[in-house]
């Protein structure tokens, strides 16, 4: 029997998320209808999501298969750490290096990017962001943070 793998995976993803939330809700008090506890509403929603997931997965059988396509590994491996690094380190290293690093890392997600252009672009962005956000808008963040300031 054929199945539309896209829909099957999709349904299962919803079922799993629903189960995770349901498990997370078990610690919470359900309460009564008058004074619903914090767990009441999430539990109802989790049940609903599991049900919808099962319906989506069930309907996938007997449908023609659909291609799922590629995974942008390179972009993900560069952009995700870049974003996390920025959040983690910007207060410590400051905005100028923060933006430079995040833009530089992101640049190499594209195979069309040349190193020179990437450096120029990242430098330009970090100057622009510093002027706009710190000088212009007064964002409470240092340009060069204490972690990289050795004077």
């Amino acid at each position, binding site marked *: 029997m054929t199945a539309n793998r896209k829909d099957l995976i999709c349904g299962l993803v919803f079922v799993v998320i629903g189960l995770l939330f349901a498990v997370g809700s078990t610690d919470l008090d359900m309460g009564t209808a008058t004074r619903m506890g*914090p767990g009441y509403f999430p539990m109802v929603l989790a049940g609903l999501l599991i049900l919808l997931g099962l319906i989506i997965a069930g309907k996938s059988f007997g449908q023609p298969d659909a291609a799922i396509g590629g995974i942008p590994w390179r972009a993900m491996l560069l952009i995700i750490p870049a974003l996390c690094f920025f959040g983690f380190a910007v207060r410590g290293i400051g905005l100028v290096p923060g933006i430079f690093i995040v833009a530089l890392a992101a640049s190499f997600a594209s195979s069309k990017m040349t190193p020179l252009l990437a450096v120029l672009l990242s430098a330009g962005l970090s100057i622009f962001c510093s002027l706009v956000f710190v000088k212009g808008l007064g964002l409470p963040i240092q340009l060069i943070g204490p972690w990289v300031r050795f004077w």
Partner: protein
Amino acid sequence: MELLSNLALGIATAGAPENIFYCFLGVLLGTLVGVLPGLGPTATTAMLLPITFVLPPTPALIMLSGIYYGAQYGGSTTAILINLPGESSSAVTSIDGYQMARQGRAGQALAAAAIGSFFAGTFATFVIALAAPPLTEIALQFGPPEYFSLVVLGLVCSVALAHGSVMKALAMIVLGLMLGLVGTDIYTGAPRFTLDRLELADGINFVAVAAGVFGIAEIFRNMENENTRDAVIAKVTSLWPSREDWRRMVAPILRGTFLGSALGILPGGGAILASFAAYTVEKKVSKYPEEFGKGAIEGVAGPESANNAGAQTSFIPMLTLGIPSNPVMALMIGAMIIQGIVPGPNVARDQPELFWGIIASMWLGNLMLVILNLPLIGIWVRLLQVPYHTLFPAIIAFASIGVYSVNSNAFDLYAVALFGVVGWLLLKLDCEPAPLLLGFVLGPLLEEHLRRAMIISRGDPMIFINFSERPISAVLLTLAAIALVIVLLPSVAKKREEVFVEED
């Protein structure tokens, strides 16, 4: 006539050269800051607020209002150009607006947004001038059961935001609702799904979710097959709406304006629903429902008009009651207090110059917005001609600092990354992000009003449907039930999916 003399006073105040200047300055700064990805109207207004402290009260508040409209329009600009909405209402704009941009019709989308906003702003200004006090009385009839029923209606209708499978759209709404519940339960203080992270105690940041599931997910998708698939947008042929575009824009603008004006009056935050509701209506009445989600101009014109009208009428509870219906209005109230004005019902009587001056300046601000932005369209569109591999690192850099600036919270950046991956995965599985975002915004409201209504009624669900006690709630829930039947009717559902499959 009292109204005429009041309006004359307002026009005289707003028309003073100094006030015109500050109104323009506000609109200009608001637009320029608002177009920075990740910076929605709240963040923009909070950042620019201190500038107005040096001014006397009337120009200060006129400038702040200008900043607010400018920031809203700026947020729509990024939603259209790079699929990065700065707030929930422009999430709707990005559905069709971004598709139009990819087809080389960014100019038309931006023009539709500007023109729709201007018309809506003009109409809503008149609504405020003519009927603010009586409308306030009506709005106060909305209690917890009415808000609950309104949100249910909104959620049922939001299935229309997706153009694919109804089941997937419903699942995305439910998932959004659940993500919206993350954080501290307001009734008991219990932390829910916070994974013991203090940063999640106040819930997941909307801007982070929106930047992730829209902006970053789109970048991942464009990077999938960078060399085989062309992420570059189609050639721009013209910037201005054609005669056909105009014909299709008029009715949506009118409907959106009306819907947005009505919803914006509710002090509990009805304006959130305005753009979603307008999109749903347009899709239902359109002769070309299959074009929605693929670049229908109605899908930009209607919601943008509704959004701006709602933004405008949300001044009503702020001006007449001193109640903020959204965070920007809360900032306006703070600004008034700092200026030495006690907000509340006394403002119209004690400070007529300020009250009517702000109202008259609303129209002026909207006029400036359209004058300022029509020429800017050319510049924005040119920005899109930058090769994609140069554009996207800039989007990521701006989104990083933009999201960070909202709460100065590292965790928000981790959320952007996570939701980028989640959004990409869901896109791959043909699940569209807009219903998820609506659920995310409305989830907390839905639960809050449901539980509050149940406390007030001591657990009696009749509070929602008892027509003699709660007519508004009963009517809204009936409408929601009818809408649900229409959505779930097999024939309708089937037609939707066929349309989807055949065009995929």
